[in-house]
């Protein structure tokens, strides 16, 4: 029962590993591997990139880290990063 008691919203009396009301833990991929939604994927050309960070700033998914690595597992391919890149260093490539 220890595991049950640790579950958010669960009670020992419920004798269940479920919480008593829908209680959800934060995780990456709540909607699954959203990278599979893409038709085009953003690719950063490191040579022309001025590291201004606008792609990081505007990514609605927080899928670009400070090393400018894109998390393709979750990037939905919206293309905002490519559109906003002042040096046109991000190309949208067909998957």
């Amino acid at each position, binding site marked *: 029962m220890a595991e049950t008691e640790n579950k*958010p919203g669960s009670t020992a009396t419920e004798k269940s590993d*479920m919480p008593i009301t829908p209680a959800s833990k934060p995780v990456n991929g709540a909607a699954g591997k959203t990278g599979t939604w893409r038709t085009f994927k953003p690719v950063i050309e490191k040579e022309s990139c001025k590291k201004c960070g606008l792609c990081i700033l505007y990514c609605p998914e927080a899928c670009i880290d400070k090393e400018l690595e894109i998390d393709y597992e979750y990037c939905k391919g919206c293309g905002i990063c490519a559109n906003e890149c002042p040096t046109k260093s991000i190309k949208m490539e067909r998957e």
Partner: protein
Amino acid sequence: MKKMSTGNQAVALAVKESDVEVVAAYPITPQTEVVETIASMVEKNTMKCAYIRVESEHSALAACIGASASGARAFTATSSHGLLYMHEMIHWAAGARLPIVMANINRAVGPAWNIWAEHTDALSQRDTGWMQFYAATVQEVYDTVLMSYKLAEKVYLPAMVNLDGFILSHSIQPLDITDTGDFIPPIDMPHALNTDDPVTYGNLTTPADYYKFRHMIHTAMQRADKEARSIEKEFAERFGRQYGPVMEYRTDDAEIVILGMGTLARETEVAVDLLRKEGIKAGSIRIRQFRPFPKLDLDGKKVIVFDRDYSFGAGGILAQEIRMRNDVPIYNVIAGLGGQDVSYNTIADIVRKSKDEGEFWLGVD
């Protein structure tokens, strides 16, 4: 301490005794004295709680839900249209498994405007997952609020304490304002919002899981029936006042049982005494706990059910509930709607003239 108190004041005093942290309420006749009394105690610093003067009943219960979801003990009070305006949130509170206690001062529903007693308001909330109690005395109002907090926080279901508008809300009767000490333990909510444990509550739940949560409300309601008995037992041992899911009167050898809820059902006991003097073996059962609905033993008895409510196209609501669980003929009396006065003489007269089965509207039939 004993003093004279109205039903409404008893609600407020019990809320104070229960160490409620957040009260959110909107005034409505005949509940107003509840919120006025709480407001007065809060502003005079004799009661310590946050009191939110919301702009509607929908918001009253929403605010209680917010407070309760973060682990605070919460209270609201309403009546009639206010209760109906809350309806969406009434479902939400139960589904979120929040141990909120609400006092509902039973009042008829418009149109026409009518501010007097009727049970249809609360009974139209019967399928929401709230426990429902119907009190018949000022003392019982006070005691039931206290026991409701303990019960609600044990099974994580909200509880509604009902009292008849004006007839009980505005009657003064002697009240023992009992210091209950540690009777209600500190609230323990494993599913409280907690910034150290960022959990999302009540998000989209698919057909694969939704029904499981509904089933858990069902099992919690079943458990509530047992917990209520043990809480009533502890209450009786500590404070000397005994309650049960039903309050029976002279039923042992009764050939006729008269069932009802609230003040009317208590007055029925006086009618029972009258009938007994005439040689009619009558007894009465006052349903105190409507949800979870109690088991009744009615076999071999003539059953008369008084409903201060009605479900159009179906019949008296209490009669339906009894019929569903008991295979007995029922003589269903519809009496007391919208404050219609029903005296013990009237009750006795109806019983004398009653048939084995059928429906009778007082003043109409």
